[in-house]
């Protein structure tokens, strides 16, 4: 099918879809009027029941904790998929990497200074987001992404990358495995100490707004932060490896 024919087919079906969406939107509660029962209940019980002041994190890690566990496994699976997809193919030319092969930095000194200056604050922000997930906006997913961004800044602005980049970084692999396992173990701790899988009340109540409050929700956030940052670093490293395979090394 040619591209123009495809666009015609698309235009017809898009018009139909747009009509259906208009009908569907007309049946939704009008904007600003929604008052879902679950949302109201969660806002009411978050502080008295769990001492969690961030109702979104309370929803994600307590009310639907099992769902978030599976979501974490999605990230885990994506990292494994990236490693599996970006492996060396049979018949793909192997570039001989000599020991001591070093890729020269392609970045200017200004970029490198800026990068070095940004890494520290990025990591601090990431730890802050993870630690206060149950109190203020943030949490394991957000903090984990920012933490991985710190590693990406380091590589993007950084000096030399040593060849051969043969395997995913071991530390990141361990961290993302530990994060996924930690979430399940914290769930099992709920089963053992509180009687239900992913029950978060066993770790104590605490004062709302304090760092150690909201039961095991902060711990679950730490596990998620480890998992997400490790997985994203593995994915980024795999893409970096592809980039470096396409690059001609200079021998130092």
């Amino acid at each position, binding site marked *: 099918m040619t591209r123009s024919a495809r666009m015609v087919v698309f235009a017809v079906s898009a018009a139909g879809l747009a009509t259906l969406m208009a009908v569907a939107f007309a049946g939704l509660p009008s904007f600003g009027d929604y008052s879902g029962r679950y*949302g109201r209940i969660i806002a009411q019980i978050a502080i008295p029941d769990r001492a969690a002041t961030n109702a979104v994190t309370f929803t994600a890690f307590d009310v639907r904790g099992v769902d978030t566990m599976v979501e974490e496994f999605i*990230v885990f699976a994506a990292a494994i998929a*990236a490693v599996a*997809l970006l492996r060396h*193919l049979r018949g793909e030319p192997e570039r001989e990497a000599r020991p001591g092969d070093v890729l020269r930095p392609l970045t200017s000194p200004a970029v490198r200074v800026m990068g070095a200056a940004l890494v520290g604050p990025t990591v601090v922000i990431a730890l802050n987001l993870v630690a206060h997930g149950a109190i203020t906006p943030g949490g394991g997913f957000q903090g984990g992404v920012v933490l991985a961004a710190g590693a990406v800044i380091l590589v993007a602005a950084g000096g030399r990358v040593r060849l051969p980049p043969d395997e995913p970084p071991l530390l990141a692999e361990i961290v993302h495995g530990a994060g996924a396992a930690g979430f399940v173990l914290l769930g099992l701790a709920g089963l053992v100490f509180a009687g239900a899988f992913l029950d978060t009340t066993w770790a104590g109540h605490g004062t709302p707004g304090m760092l150690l409050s909201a039961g095991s929700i902060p711990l679950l956030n730490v596990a998620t932060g480890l998992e997400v940052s490790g997985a994203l670093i593995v*994915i980024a490293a795999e*893409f970096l490896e592809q980039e470096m395979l396409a690059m001609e090394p200079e021998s130092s």
Partner: protein
Amino acid sequence: MTVLTYGVAGWLFLVGLAGIVRSNNVIGVVICLGVVQSSTYVLLLAIGYRTGAKAPILADIPTGTPVVDPVVQALTLTDVVVEATVTAVLLALAVQAHKRFGSLDPDAMTRMRG
């Protein structure tokens, strides 16, 4: 107002879909898929909005203040995570496809190889 707000979600969905259909580069397809998925964020957040309500951070507001729905916000978080992982896997597929076919044009990827 209602039509306009939900219309943004519908428009993002359709415009992203149009981008996927007319794209001649799989990287473009992945980016357009991101646009399609962002329509779901807009829709979810628009549904949960309550006029005059505060953000669902209960730290600094008096007890009982109406807040926007935290359930849809948590769902949006899930949505963002799924989009990020889908993008990563699709880009990895794009890299491999480029190695196989020497091109990123989806129309050039119809050949089968035994």
